[in-house]
């Protein structure tokens, strides 16, 4: 069962955070087809969030075909986002670890590393858009 967490300072709408956490879990294989998502009431009780928000997140996931709501029984994972093999993830992760190690050797602290990654990612995405 997935457990949600919220970052109030992120500026990301609560329902989007829930959608993303489900998708991340589907990508990484921690949620699989047939698994049940917590009920709206359970998430509300756990996080003290607005039930409408949770319902909206689940509706979004359902519209994308990722989960299916079964009347009176709950919401279940209907398809997965994990690539056929997790192999490329493992390799990319290893490369990233090596890169992080050299960044640390170069004297970058955690914040500088984050800043460098996020600006590079942003500019790279902007170039692809342009």
């Amino acid at each position, binding site marked *: 069962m997935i457990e949600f967490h919220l970052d109030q300072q*992120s*500026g990301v*709408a609560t329902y989007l955070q829930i959608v993303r956490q489900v998708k991340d879990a589907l990508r990484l294989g921690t949620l699989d087809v047939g698994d049940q998502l917590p009920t709206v009431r359970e998430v*509300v009780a756990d996080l003290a969030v*607005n039930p409408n*928000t949770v319902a909206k997140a689940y509706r979004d996931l359902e519209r994308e075909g990722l989960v299916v709501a079964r009347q009176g029984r709950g919401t279940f994972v209907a398809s997965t986002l994990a690539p056929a093999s997790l192999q490329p993830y493992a390799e990319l992760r290893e490369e990233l670890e090596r890169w992080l190690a050299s960044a640390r050797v170069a004297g970058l602290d955690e914040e500088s590393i984050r800043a460098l990654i996020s*600006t590079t990612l*942003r500019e790279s995405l*902007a170039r692809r858009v342009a």
Partner: protein
Amino acid sequence: MSSPPLVADGLGKRFRRDWALRDLTLTIPKGAVVGLAGPNAAGKSTLLSLAAGVLAPSEGSISVLGDDPLRTPEILGEVGYVAQGAPLYRSFRVEDTIEYARRTNSRWDREIAVELLTRIDSRAKVGALSAGERARLALALALGKRPRLVLLDEPFASLDPLAARELLQLLMDGVAELGATVVVASHVVADIQRVCDHIVLLTGGCVRLEGGVEELLESHRLLTGPRRPLGSIRGVREVVRERYSGRQLTMLVTTDGPIVDPSWTVDRVSLEELLLAYMAPERLPNVRKMERVALRWHG
């Protein structure tokens, strides 16, 4: 059935010579959890009192669940209102308070009230309850009516963070059960940002900002960049607020498209930051002037 739970049209309320609320026009969508934000004396309590039929408007009109609360007071049977400080009879015992509520409400739902009152001694005097317990009792009285509209005025004011969180959970669970529309007034944005999906921000008796939380978060960005004369930045519609710190300029802007200008770092803004920026008393007039005088900005 389908009339919006709360509609204000040109609504104003004057106490002697001072307007507590002026020219307020808004519609609260059904099923929303509305954060009614604003500094002290912004008119939040006045608005809730008008909606609860406790006060009469000085001008304009207010409609609650489709009716005028003063002309059709029956409608208030479907409104759960908890005034600031949760006023209750301190000499009543908890069970007497509940019994009174049961007898005076035709739609009384014992289950809901009981669930909210677990761990509270029903024979205790109301005056002997802790602030958290008293808040829960007041919420139980409001939700036990199975209201379609819940109005809460500063429900977290005297609560420690744990009790506030618990009250919020109980409130949201009640909303899940009832499908009610909720308006929570609070001057502490952190208390309500977790739950509200709609914001009405009042300052000086007027609506300063109103809308869905998601849309508000999507349409605002925080830009950080070098201090320099500003032409227009593509994607920026309006500068809400700006401040200098050292050689850096930070601006809260509304957007009308993606901002890809590489000289600016673009960040999302939390609801709390957003509301605080709009709440700040003076709105900075124009950008050119700001180049000369660096004003300090207190978030």
